[in-house]
């Protein structure tokens, strides 16, 4: 009894103790829930914005869609640069059960090089499983056909079509057109966000100069992806704006004529419509096929081009620096008349050489026996050097410089091709600045015949000739003819840009010079008389032969004894038709030796291509 009483007492005490603990437990439970709720409030209310941002960043990503590049046409709509589908064989590892078996199976269908397989296996380790990995680039049509037929046997194997730049005319006009290539690391640093996703960029020529127009505007796609990066849906789609098409002033026919006429010689031809500044042909030979450059030319092939002594990669038409030689004579002659130093009737006796006072150096004429008494017309027609030595001395270097500067010699013409050279129009100041030497009178003489320090590019010569034909109207030579937006709507033509006027003192002087130049071609004694025979139109021209190698006093220029690359350059500038000039041409044939018989026929062919309609 007593025992049970104790037990009962204990029981009550026990219960009381236990119940108090239950209440404490209840309080603790509520406190713990309070902590959890506080944590939730902190995360879901106070930090909500922060985590919303993180969550957005997790799932939404922006993919850029590069715009298709604009096409390039010639003035008549012939495609010079286009985008062709290029086929790439790709594998999606996620969808392939046995990669080895698939690779072996594919090798039975088409040829896959070891290096391709090696590169693929390397990429396989790095990439995510759902991302396609290229196995072989630039499949040809047979390969595409063979793979397409058997594609059902290879799940996870895809043929992807990409647009790749292609130049259908290959090397034709390559020095005008330029080419695109893969963006390199240096370029990446300078490109803005518009180039996200773009793989190629214009490297030279028109492709580079009109890069902004041709490229277009990048598009983007806002996509939702899951934790493994797989695209689930497109939230926003801003399609890219394709690049604008560019029409060039080039005429494929004239260009082909120019390149064909140069044949396998080294040289350049530039043809300009003097009325508008439109460049009808811009050839630099030898050229090269730009297509291998698009996806990276193989090293060996590149070295072959770069190391060739013919320098096919060098754009002679805008970068080449040549002594203009006798092609400068029309400008010096015109200066003589405009400054009233000489006029049509002035005769100068040519005995084959010229001497300065107190100097026994003989400045020789190309004709050692001399031309006899020469008028300016005759001196142009027969390219008498002595006449121009005398005239140059009378004019003085300052006036020669001032007059020729008006034709923009020694300055870039501003043609829309990158990398143009400015050439050199020598003056006292120029010599002091560059050579740190005073000007010598003898230098004035050789400047008068376009030798000495004078250098000009073919584009400059063509531009100056065009200016001469238009009585001093200077229009910037250009290749850009029109742009066309991506919808293929109407063309927006480039306005000819007038750079200035050469002031005319007497129009007669210009007429006189034009006629003198006409005699070069259309008279029995003209230096380019051969091209005047049977010409359906009249033209004006001037031959030039520029010394590459300095011949010593009293030494005879011996063609046979000179190495090929030391022989004289042959030059010819001209415009036609005589009464209504529509084309001005400058031709330079390196080591061509004779302006009249080598350079002039090339100009004739180019003019025929433009002026004679079949």
């Amino acid at each position, binding site marked *: 009894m007593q025992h049970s009483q104790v037990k009962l007492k204990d029981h009550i005490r026990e219960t009381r103790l*236990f119940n108090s603990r239950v209440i404490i437990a209840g309080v603790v*439970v509520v406190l713990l*829930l309070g902590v959890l709720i506080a944590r939730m*409030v902190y*995360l879901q*209310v106070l930090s909500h914005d922060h985590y919303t941002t993180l969550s957005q960043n*997790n799932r939404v990503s922006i993919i850029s869609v590069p715009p298709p590049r604009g096409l390039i046409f010639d003035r008549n709509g012939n495609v010079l640069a286009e985008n062709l589908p290029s086929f790439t064989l790709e594998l999606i590892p996620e969808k392939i059960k046995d990669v080895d078996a698939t690779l072996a199976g594919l090798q039975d269908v088409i040829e896959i090089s070891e290096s391709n397989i090696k590169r693929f296996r390397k990429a396989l380790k790095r990439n995510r499983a759902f991302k396609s990995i290229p196995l072989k680039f630039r499949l040809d049509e047979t390969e595409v056909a063979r793979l397409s037929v058997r594609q059902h046997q290879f799940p996870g194997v895809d043929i992807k079509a990409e647009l790749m730049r292609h130049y259908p005319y290959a090397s034709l006009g390559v020095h005008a057109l330029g080419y695109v290539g893969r963006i390199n690391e240096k370029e990446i640093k300078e490109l803005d966000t518009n180039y996200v996703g773009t793989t190629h960029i214009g490297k030279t020529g028109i492709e580079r100069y009109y890069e902004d127009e041709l490229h277009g505007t990048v598009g983007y796609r806002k996509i939702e992806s899951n934790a493994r990066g797989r695209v689930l849906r497109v939230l926003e789609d801003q399609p890219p704006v394709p690049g604008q098409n560019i029409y060039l002033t080039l005429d494929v026919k004239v260009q082909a004529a120019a390149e064909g006429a140069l044949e396998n010689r080294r040289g350049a031809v530039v043809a300009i419509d003097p009325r508008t500044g439109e460049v009808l042909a811009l050839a630099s030979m030898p050229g090269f096929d730009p297509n291998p450059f698009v996806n990276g030319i193989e090293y060996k092939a590149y070295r072959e081009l770069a190391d060739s002594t013919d320098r096919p990669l060098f754009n002679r038409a805008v970068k080449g620096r040549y002594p203009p030689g006798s092609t400068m004579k029309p400008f010096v002659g015109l200066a003589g008349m405009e400054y009233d130093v000489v006029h049509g009737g002035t005769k100068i006796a040519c005995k084959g050489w010229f001497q300065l006072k107190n100097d026994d150096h003989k400045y020789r004429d190309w004709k050692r026996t001399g031309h006899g008494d020469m008028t300016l017309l005759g001196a142009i027609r027969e390219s008498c050097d002595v006449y121009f030595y005398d005239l140059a001395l009378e004019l003085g270097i300052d006036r020669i410089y001032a007059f020729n500067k008006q034709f923009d010699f020694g300055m870039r013409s501003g043609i829309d091709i990158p990398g143009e050279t400015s050439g050199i129009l020598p003056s006292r100041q120029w010599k002091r600045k560059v050579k740190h030497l005073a000007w010598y009178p003898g230098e004035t003489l050789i400047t008068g015949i376009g030798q000495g320090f004078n250098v000009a590019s073919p584009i400059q010569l063509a531009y100056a000739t065009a200016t001469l034909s238009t009585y001093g109207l200077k229009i910037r030579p250009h290749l850009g003819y029109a742009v066309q937006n991506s919808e293929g709507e109407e063309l927006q033509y480039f306005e000819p840009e007038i750079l200035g006027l050469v002031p005319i003192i007497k129009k007669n002087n210009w007429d006189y010079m034009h006629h003198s130049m006409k005699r070069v071609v259309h008279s029995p004694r003209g230096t380019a008389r051969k091209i005047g025979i049977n010409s359906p139109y009249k033209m004006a021209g001037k031959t030039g032969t520029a010394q590459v190698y300095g011949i010593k006093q009293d030494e005879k220029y011996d063609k046979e004894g000179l190495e090929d690359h030391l022989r004289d350059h042959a030059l010819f500038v001209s415009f036609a038709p005589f009464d209504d000039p529509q084309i001005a041409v400058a031709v330079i044939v390196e080591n061509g030796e004779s302006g009249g018989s080598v350079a002039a026929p090339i100009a004739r062919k180019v003019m025929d291509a433009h002026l004679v309609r079949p």
Partner: protein
Amino acid sequence: MARSRLSAGLENTNQKQNGGFLSDLHIDWPLMTGLIALSIFGLVVLYSASGENWTTVSRQMIWMSIAFLVMIFVAQIPPHHIQFWTPWVFGFGVLLLVAVLLFGEVGKGAQRWLNLGLFRVQPSEIMKFACPMMVAWYMAEKSLPPSTSRILIALIILAIPVALIAKQPDLGTSILVASAGIFVLLFTGISWFLIGGFGVLLAAAAPVVWFYYMHDYQRQRVLTFLNPESDPLGSGYHIIQSKIAIGSGGLYGKGWLNGTQSQLDFLPERSTDFIFAVFSEEFGLVGVLVLLSLYLYIVVRGLIIAYEAQSTFARLLAGSLVLTFMVYIVVNIGMVSGLLPVVGVPLPLVSYGGTSMVTLMIAFGMLMSIQTHRKLLTS
């Protein structure tokens, strides 16, 4: 003896019955209502968390049905029978744990499963209820509060299964099992002085545990917990992504099936341990408050059952089971929200998984048994 008590119990219930099979059963309807509501809630969340996978949901429904049946079955066993069988259950459990260590199957770097031919069992699950049962059984033998020596013996009894489970290694379960046993001791009314001393002892033991008993991955988890951003793609990924899910849910959530973190697979283990993150992303703070209210309701009901329980064993067991249930909730939500290190504890009745649910429902079965087998004090 046992037989007569059983028949007496049956007579007792027979007297109450007024026809109908359901009313014959020992079921605590307030608790049952809460559990059913929570289960439905859980299935709705799981449907979304599984990526609208009906197979997962129906499998969970089958397990749920089994778990509820087991609970109802357990609820029919009177508390004194449970008390009688306690040492046997505990002993059997320890044997199985030893067997796991010797012949267990390895999965995910831990040895937790025992293949019994027909099915696999996870013996540590049994300990979640066997441990509090055993400690309660031992404590109920003598009057309370217990003497210090009895407390020590109880701790040793507890230490055996806890050590065996920790060795598997399964930190989450060993914490749950240990806390279940300790809750019994707290309910016995041991002095606060002792509790405090025990706490100090635990703190002192922590470094020892860190250096000698914890596995590298467990240490890594704790380190990651302290600074998840140190390893955002590795072990910190879980915590970072689940915090983003919860935080971006905001007040009202992104809507059912619309949680981007969960639906787009940014959340790992989203249908099991991290299901709470899915839930809070889609239902927001409002949803969280509703869920926590539901849990609170169940816990309070459990505490009432413990409060009203008549035998020492029953009240100790009931109190401990309820608090263990609470530990599940706090540890799971605490870890998912970045308050606690990542330990594998499911969110009760919401996380996908059958075994732990059955264990949990056995515990609720015992609570129901304790509540429904009370004899009116007046009779």
